[in-house]
């Protein structure tokens, strides 16, 4: 597998070619054949990732390929180097694999859309950017593609840009991400200022030489970027709105891959975080708060995609907990498993929407189990995996994070995570039951739900298998194949020593909690023994708090958007119109006025002009005679 080191460039190049081809030729020539290029291209990318993965998995040595030197400015050199270590390899597999499946799914899902070629230009472009982000070997390249995936996210959320809500959501995502990216870029600048280099290896080597305060600042600034990109509190608000994009986009970008870029970045730069316990603590707390808040919100939502979206936020919170408590491998493991079941859930809900003509409200679904069996079973597997039901993927990874938090000395965080796990189970099964069980609440006269075509069902099945078995990569906990694989990356990190008893105890606890959530959901939506409305009534303010997303959007609206808008209006009305425009118009009026004055001299009579010239000559020569010659001296 050595040869792959020279062919790494294929992984990003294939999607790039597809994107460029569809951009340039899509509108006039390729049109609805766009997937002929895009799907195989991403497939090639995936196929090229597999040997890279095998190579690093076998020999434990990172691969790298130097492409070219991007910025050769004296001492400051930024080479574009593709480097693959175990962490990158895992990410590559996840990104290209899920991307391939989503591309395949999109062929069916986007069929007949007028922007078909555009979709298949953006999507490979995203894959290219994401792959390059993962493959980067220095902070500047990382940042460039960090922004590039942000751009793709913007383009894809606003894919149906004629719809006002989609355009607004795209803008919101972009702007909220800018807040995080601002901190991120300052962090990178701080790294360059203090260490004089942006290369990963050199930075991690020299990070020990920095003072504690500096390292904390760098770590927190980098984490700001992750907060934005990975939708942590308080910048998670863009992710639910991002569901305005096409469902495959939600599955790929806003669940499986892009949002995990923040998690990946923190894991990538773990030497910096390890050097700053304060930063670690912040990461853990932010993760715990995110996991809990998002889970509670998800319980109260009716829009199926939003439920899944908040679930994503919540799961990203779990990953942050893993990062913050030092359970690095567990976090990446959860990222890995989450990619499967979350993509599955999104594609499943997309499949439901497909069957119900873009219906999103779960209150108008129900009973789909009979008409869409394949979708039901795959969705169920995904939901169970997400809820942490033994032995599906989510159980293993989530359990490991909670255990890691407990063992790592953050019992409160572990408890919050357990609480969130209860809500996770509750909202997941609530979604399943409301959608697939009970009476059929949709318009049966006009809607005839059915399972989707093969291009859509094949990804569902593949992902369902993955969601079911991916967890076994990490079995037994802490000593599984996955851990041994990633061990070299996190060598410097502290190892948790977990006793078998603890593991079993937490396994039991989380299983009980998950089943409790399952039971509650069943009681409320299938058995009818608990009335959700009554519960909501009784909880009162708490319910409204969760239903209104903890008022994050309203607070932002009050504290940031409206003052900013007011200030902008002030600038517009008073400064721009009143001062700048007035100055420009004034200058123009002055010119007009002066020229009105002077145009009287413009008689059109050449003779007069000539006379003026001659007069000037006489005057100048006279002045010369008086001043310059010795005539009058």
């Amino acid at each position: 597998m050595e040869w792959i080191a020279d062919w790494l460039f294929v992984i990003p190049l294939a999607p790039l070619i597809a994107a460029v081809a569809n951009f340039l030729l899509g509108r006039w020539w390729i049109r609805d054949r766009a997937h002929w290029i895009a799907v195989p291209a991403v497939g090639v990318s995936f196929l090229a990732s597999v040997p890279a993965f095998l190579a690093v998995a076998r020999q434990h040595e990172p691969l790298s390929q130097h492409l070219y030197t991007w910025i050769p400015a004296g001492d400051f050199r930024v080479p574009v180097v593709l480097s693959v270590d175990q962490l990158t390899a895992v990410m590559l597999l996840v990104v290209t694999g899920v991307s391939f499946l989503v591309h395949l799914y999109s062929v069916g899902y986007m069929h007949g859309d007028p922007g078909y070629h555009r979709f298949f230009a953006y999507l490979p472009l995203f894959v290219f950017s994401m792959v390059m982000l993962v493959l980067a070997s220095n902070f500047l390249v990382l940042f460039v593609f960090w922004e590039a995936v942000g751009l793709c996210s913007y383009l894809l959320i606003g894919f149906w840009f004629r719809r006002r809500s989609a355009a607004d959501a795209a803008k919101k995502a972009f702007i909220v991400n800018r807040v995080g990216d601002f901190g991120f870029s300052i962090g990178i600048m701080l790294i360059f200022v203090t260490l004089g280099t942006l290369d990963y290896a050199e930075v991690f080597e020299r990070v020990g030489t920095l003072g504690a305060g500096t390292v904390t600042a760098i770590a927190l600034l980098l984490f700001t970027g992750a907060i934005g990109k990975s939708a942590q509190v308080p910048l998670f608000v863009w992710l639910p709105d991002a569901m305005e994009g096409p469902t495959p986009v939600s599955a790929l970008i806003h669940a499986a891959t892009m949002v995990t870029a923040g998690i990946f970045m923190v894991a990538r730069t773990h030497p910096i975080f390890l050097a700053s316990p304060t930063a670690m603590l912040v990461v853990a707390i932010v993760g715990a708060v995110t996991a809990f808040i998002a889970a509670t919100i998800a319980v109260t939502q009716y829009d199926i995609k939003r439920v899944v979206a908040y679930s994503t936020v919540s799961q990203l919170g779990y990953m942050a907990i893993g990062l913050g408590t030092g359970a690095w491998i567990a976090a990446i493991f959860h990222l890995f498993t989450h990619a499967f079941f979350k993509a599955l859930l999104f594609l499943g809900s997309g499949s439901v929407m497909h069957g119900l003509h873009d219906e999103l409200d779960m209150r108008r679904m129900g009973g789909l189990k009979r008409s869409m069996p394949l979708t039901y079973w795959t969705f169920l597997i995904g939901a169970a995996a997400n809820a942490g039901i033994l032995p599906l993927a989510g159980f293993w990874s989530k359990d490991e994070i909670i255990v890691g938090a407990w063992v790592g000395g953050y019992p409160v965080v572990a408890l919050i995570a357990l609480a969130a796990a209860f809500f996770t189970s509750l909202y997941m099964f609530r979604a399943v039951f409301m959608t697939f069980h009970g009476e059929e609440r949709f318009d049966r006269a006009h809607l005839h739900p059915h399972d989707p075509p093969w291009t859509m069902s094949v990804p569902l099945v593949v992902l369902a298998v993955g969601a079911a078995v991916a967890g076994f990569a990490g079995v037994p906990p802490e000593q599984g194949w996955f851990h041994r694989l990633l061990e070299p990356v996190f060598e410097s990190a502290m190892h948790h020593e977990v006793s078998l008893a603890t593991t079993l105890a937490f396994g039991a606890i989380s299983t009980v909690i998950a089943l409790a959530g399952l039971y509650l959901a069943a009681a409320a939506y299938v058995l009818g023994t608990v009335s959700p409305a009554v519960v909501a009534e009784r909880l009162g303010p708490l319910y409204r708090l969760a239903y209104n997303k903890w008022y994050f959007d309203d607070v932002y609206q009050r504290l940031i958007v409206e003052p900013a808008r007011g200030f902008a209006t002030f600038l517009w009305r008073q400064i721009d119109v009143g001062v700048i425009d007035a100055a420009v118009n004034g200058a123009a009026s002055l010119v007009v006025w002066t020229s009105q004055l002077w145009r009287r001299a413009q008689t059109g009579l050449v003779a007069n002009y000539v006379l003026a010239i001659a007069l000037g000559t006489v005057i100048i020569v006279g002045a010369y005679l008086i001043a310059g010659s010795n005539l009058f001296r």
Partner: protein
Amino acid sequence: MSELTTAHFLFLSAALFIIGMVGVLTRRNVLIIFMCVELMLNAVNVSFIGFAWEQNALTGQIFALFVIAVAAAEAVIGLGIVMALSRRLDTVDIDEVRQLRE
């Protein structure tokens, strides 16, 4: 003055130049004005060559050469414009050509 001095040539130049200038100022026929401009250019050439003669230099002569070249270019364009003018406006009276007004 029993010897030729530069002043002789300068006076000739001045006389020609001012005759040309008066012609430009007082005549109305575009072609006459054009000829008077040529006269002024020529007067300047006399000065240049006179100075070159005085200073034992060629710079003045070469300058005069350039003036002749520019005059040739000017003649071509100027006469072209006069032709166009007479075709469009049917006149070569400078006072009737007032399209540049305001």
